[in-house]
């Protein structure tokens, strides 16, 4: 692959240089040394405008073909994700239509009206009707998108506490994540970085005297029961981080000094998602690529074969290892979740 690309690259450069030389020669032969576009220049560049329009359509098509399985616009694993995906599709279709039409008009006009000596342009300075039309059309389209978008946004961000969501704290630090479950009472114990006591292994600064903290437990993997709303409370101990869970269409910054929150309901278990044909296809593809780089991957100490997992990654620049700050998320049935939760060590027992 790399070799092929290198060859293409060298070819590109060679063609470019050859073209340059050729044009230089032509310029020397030409009668006038004018640096102002002639009819000949207008013609060539007019045709190139059409060619460029084709190029834009081709690169659109190629991007869609090779990169367009758009894993983020299908296979959402959360309830609100479907709504976001719908809105995304609608916006994308609008964008695609407007892009296709306006690029056509721009480049076609550039070709059609390429200059010729002696022709006079149309003196056409204003038309209120036209101006009105292309003010009002964007207004209507945008009004639709804004209304849809705001309803979706409010649904996502306004968290209804009556639904009794499972409360989990996401704790960020350079360069790892921790999760703190609120346990049987579903209430997190109080915490502050000033209470951190490394010697006692109280790494999140949880208040040992808070009764609500007694059943809390801290993990380095997130387990979620399918179909139940989860409310994440985010904290950070040092710099800004961002908890990004792309499969669930969820993201919120973790800000030192305050608690931020985000809630969603996972709808597909990890096991189910691994069975989905698109995901099977994607994993197969990735593993083929990984086998090609086997030596390199093993040297880096990674597992060679990839298996699908939901992930949480850091999406706000946070320092040197920002690129590798991750945690797995496992969505499972309520029974599996309960069994897992039972095995965890509660906070008081985890202290030294």
């Amino acid at each position, binding site marked *: 692959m790399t070799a092929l690309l290198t060859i293409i690259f060298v070819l590109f450069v060679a063609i470019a240089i050859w073209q340059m030389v050729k044009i230089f020669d032509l310029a020397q032969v030409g009668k006038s040394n004018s640096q102002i576009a002639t009819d000949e220049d207008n013609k060539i560049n007019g045709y190139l405008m059409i060619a460029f329009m084709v190029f834009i359509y081709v690169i659109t098509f190629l991007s869609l073909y090779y990169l367009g399985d758009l894993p983020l616009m299908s296979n959402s694993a959360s309830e609100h994700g479907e709504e976001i995906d719908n809105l995304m599709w609608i916006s994308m279709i609008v964008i695609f239509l407007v892009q296709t039409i306006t690029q056509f008009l721009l480049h076609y006009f550039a070709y059609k009206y390429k200059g010729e000596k002696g022709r006079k342009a149309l003196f056409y300075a204003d038309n209120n009707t036209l101006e009105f039309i292309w003010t009002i059309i964007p207004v209507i389209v945008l009004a639709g998108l804004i209304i849809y978008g705001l309803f979706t946004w409010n649904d996502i961000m306004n968290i209804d506490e009556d639904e009794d969501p499972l409360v989990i704290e996401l704790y960020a630090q350079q360069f790892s994540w921790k999760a703190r479950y609120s346990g049987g009472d579903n209430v997190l114990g109080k915490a502050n970085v000033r209470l951190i006591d490394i010697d006692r292994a109280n790494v999140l600064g949880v208040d040992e005297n808070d009764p609500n903290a007694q059943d809390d437990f801290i993990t380095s993997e997130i387990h979620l029961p399918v179909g139940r709303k989860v409310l994440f409370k985010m904290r950070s101990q040092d710099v800004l981080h961002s908890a990004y869970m792309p499969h669930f269409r969820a993201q919120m910054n973790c800000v030192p000094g305050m608690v931020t929150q985000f809630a969603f309901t996972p709808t597909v278990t990890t096991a189910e998602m691994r069975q989905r044909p698109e995901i099977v296809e994607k994993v197969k593809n990735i593993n083929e690529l990984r086998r090609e780089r086997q030596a390199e991957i093993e040297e880096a100490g990674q597992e060679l074969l990839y298996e699908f997992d939901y992930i949480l990654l850091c999406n706000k620049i946070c320092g040197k290892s920002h*690129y590798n700050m991750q945690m797995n998320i496992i969505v499972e049935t309520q029974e599996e979740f309960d069994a897992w939760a039972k095995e965890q060590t509660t906070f008081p027992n985890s202290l030294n």
Partner: protein
Amino acid sequence: MSATLDTHGHDDHDVHHHKETFVTKYIFSQDHKMIAKQYLITGTIMGVIGVLMSIMFRIQIAWPEKPNILFEALLGKWAPDGVMDADVYLALVTIHGTIMVFFVLTAGLSGTFSNLLIPLQIGARDMASGFLNMVSYWLFFISSFIMLCSLFVEAGPAAAGWTIYPPLSALPMAQGGSGMGMTLWLISMAIFIAQSLLGSLNYIVTVINLRTKGMSMTRLPLTVWALFVTAIIGLVSFPVLLSAALLLIMDRSFGTSFFLSDIFIQGEVLHYQGGSPVLFEHLFWFLGHPEVYIVILPAMGLVSEIMATNSRKPIFGYRAMIASILAIAFLSTIVWGHHMFVSGMNPFLGSVFTFTTLLIAIPSAVKAFNWITTIWKGNLQMNPAMLFSIGFVSTFITGGLTGIILGDSALDINVHDTYFVIAHFHLVMGISAIYGMFAGIYHWFPKMYGRMMNKNLGYIHFWITAICAYGVFFPMHFIGMAGLPRRYYTNSAFPLFDDLANANVIITIFAIIGGLVQIVYLYNFFVSMFYGKKAEQNPWKSTTLEWTTPVEHIHGNWPGAIPHVYRWSYDYSKPGHDDDFVPQNVPLKEGEEELQH
């Protein structure tokens, strides 16, 4: 010098020619044309550095953690055995962003063309204050110099992203670059803001007070309108960044807690309490968002002018164009929150900012349609400047359209801080503004240097750049939608993204070619400066006043009286005239009506 200023333009007193030394002519010049050239050259040098950095980090993304001779040569101890260090990667993206946004596209673009065009196009002998103008350039020079010095400090330059969000930027223990490197960054930016404010004041005063007789506001070329409004936006928003920078300096060096609270780092609790990084984000983006319009409005102005001239047609909807510039300027100051939808601010604020943000699409759409209508039934002269202007409209549309996704808070949740954002803002303000700048340089080169640039090299420059710009940024939308976060040193920590690796290689190849082809431009620029074909007085047959001045630069611009203005600046192909253009200083014929545009 000041004696030559003629505020009314109808006094015919002679222009004095002081004896000039090399120093007063080329270094501490107070002549707006020379200052424009100084801005351009400094901006070009910064641009070369900024682009080179982007090529280096693109190579790292495409072939992660592979040794590279380029790194070994340029990065030295920061690339042990030629492998780029992760901190340096972040430093490169940070300084690339800072240099391109502020030093190239703000000072280089607006500084060059405001200085060159405002006095020439409104019919003034110079800026309102030549001295302040000189001071503003030299502050820009000092600020650039300090920024470049920061590349050489022991622990590396600032590396917290060009948005320098604290606490990362505030705590040297959080990141090497947040020590001396960040201090120099802040000092450099504070000086930069000072130069920007001095420049803006000068531009505003000049446009308001020094217009020649007959040059009413509704006869001004759109370039001047755009540069004028840009100066106003800068004056409103840059001081807020200055305050953010000063408060950050206080937090860093004097122990205050404006932006910091409850921090535990490297085994100790810091004393900070009660501050909030979100406050910094508000202050930063209060400038940061208007900043993108400070970058793009001058480009819009240049493109409007160049499109009309080369289409041999009036700009379509002159008044709508002015109205949309004003609407964009106003809205630009109330949309900053769309950078902060997932920052933890109140979701209701998110709703408000979604609404205002999508509103800004309306004046932008009006402008795009007006440009397309301007070339409709024109007689297009495909000079390099015209090609870049058409390219500008193309990338502005492509990049602008995805704004309706990012501006929509619900959708932003999932594409925030991914490559989708990078694709969006590079096309809509990076590439577009650079195209506007190139268009302006090709168009006004004869005015600046009295010579023509080579058009064939210009064509090569445009077409390869145009292909590479799309080749780099178009596929980026898709890898962004696949969830790939920005500012990752390597994507290899996530097998999930392995299938995007090839796309990243292709993008990097386009980036390298796109970078290399700028050498053609630089060659053309510097060789034409000395050996280009001598320019005629009005090579593009333009209507505006700058082309009524002699080719050779003189103090005071016009050897005799300043011309009076009798018509708007877009009388191209007007019926009833033999030529397809009527300069602004030609009186109306008997019975001719000035178009009620």
